[in-house]
């Protein structure tokens, strides 16, 4: 299952990373190396095995559905690249 530059470009787009053209081919080679190594997982008999997504075998806790936090506009915006009047300011995206 060889990965080529076009596949890398697609995956990088899915990850929302602008990869420059000259990085596509080297990245394809790196990915191929890693994927070839990962392919050994196909040797494992996983018939009837449930996928393991967590080490914690407890049901998710529920808390009371009440407001426990809030009124921290300043704190929430304190690291915004741009903020004004209690709002995040983002570039215009709708013409």
């Amino acid at each position, binding site marked *: 299952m060889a990965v080529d530059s076009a596949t890398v470009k697609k995956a990088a787009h899915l990850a929302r990373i602008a990869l420059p053209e000259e990085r596509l081919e080297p990245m394809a080679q790196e990915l191929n190396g890693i994927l070839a190594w990962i392919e050994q997982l196909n040797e494992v008999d996983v018939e009837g095995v449930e996928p393991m997504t967590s080490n914690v075998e407890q049901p998710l806790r529920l808390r009371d559905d009440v407001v426990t936090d809030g009124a921290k506009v300043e704190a929430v915006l304190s*690291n915004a690249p741009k903020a004004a009047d209690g709002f995040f300011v983002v570039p215009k995206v709708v013409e």
Partner: protein
Amino acid sequence: MSDLTSLTLKAALDGLKSKAFSSAELTQAFLANIEAANPRLNAYVEVTADRALEMARASDARIASGEAGALEGAPLGIKDLFCTDGVQTTAGSNMLRGFVPPYESTVTANLWRDGAVMLGKLNMDEFAMGSSNETSAFGPVVNPWKSKASNADLTPGGSSGGSASAVAADLCLAATASDTGGSIRQPAAFTGTVGVKPTYGRASRYGMVAFASSLDQAGPIAKTVEDAALLLRSMCSFDEKDSTSLEVETPDWTAAVGKSVKGLRVGVPAEYVMDGMPAEILNLWEQGQAWLKDAGAEIVPISLPHTKYALPAYYIVAPAEASSNLARYDGMRFGHRAEGAKSLGDLYEKTRAEGFGKEVQRRLTIGAYVLSAGFYDAFYVRALKVRRRIAQDFDEAWKACDVVLTPSTPSAAFAIGDKQIDPITMYLNDVFTVTANLAGLPGVSVPAGLDAGGLPLGLQVIGRALDEATMFSAAAALEQAAGFTARPEKWW
């Protein structure tokens, strides 16, 4: 006063309690060490000297009035992925340069509750993705140890390279760290320090910059097993703010340190003998078995048949989780934002291309690939099934043994730049540690010997879930038998 900094955490706490010295004096001594060493070792990315002295004076006041907490007045280093209120937290990334959290992580909040003093924030691989601290946007950390064979700068391992280097060079009494595939235990092994990853769910992940949430776990790096047990106790707690936090008591693990290992069944997995494993590692491992046997333990050969699949499974699961977790860095609410983008999509892509380093970009791309339509079942779901096989291997092993003994790493510390040629060579560093992450088990690395070049080597003890106590007893027995007293020669 500089000898104060070579004290263990336990000895320093005793000295503070008996007023042999003050926390302010101790803190000053560490700040002086950091000032002298950091230009060469690059262990700290930020030193919070004023805050440290303020905290130290407050500790001295509490000691004077008899209100001392469990870590009262102890100066610690904090890995830069624990959010610290009002102090920059970067996770080693340009993406978070200048990010100042308006809140405190639960782990660090627990430390301040117990009276600890923060010296500063410690360097690390970017978003904890690395095994050599070379992926940090703040440059690599240098290991205080040097090989007799060469004067080259060595890596302290990673991703908690700053934590390990700082503890080994007496730049703090002990440090917080985090472990997703071996990021506490591998650097501990490379620096002659003790590193513990507790059972998944013991330490809260709230306020820890996320890498792979089903694997990430906080833990300490310290000078002795007892110190690690002390610090771990303060770090752990049940926390409603972390949905995977375990609602269990945090025991006093120092009680387990020094406890007899007579009758303890120590499993030695056949599959951990790897092709091309250096004889020194093999010999140390056998020596470790002999030490525990001499102390009254029983050595039991066990089988963990899916061991060789652990790293490949990890390199699907971890990047997949990372690609989802790190989607939050979109340049909108916090972190870096690129200038001059032509569209929204362009802004995201440019922001992330500028903010993330090469290794992070590589892993996020792999993550997106293995989760993408058509590959999800073949890669991601299969890896999760293999993960269960690995966990089942341990379930089976616990029928025959109480702890598992393995080497911590396949080699001693290597030179900076040595393993950057090929990602897989770098990934193999975690071959002995990653199984504990996948299965959620506690693991500790204990310094146990030196290689031919005079560099430290570690042995790892893996315990049953939530049975850190037995793990600590075995680790302390190894520590005592090894009598590891070597220290790096001060060249910095």
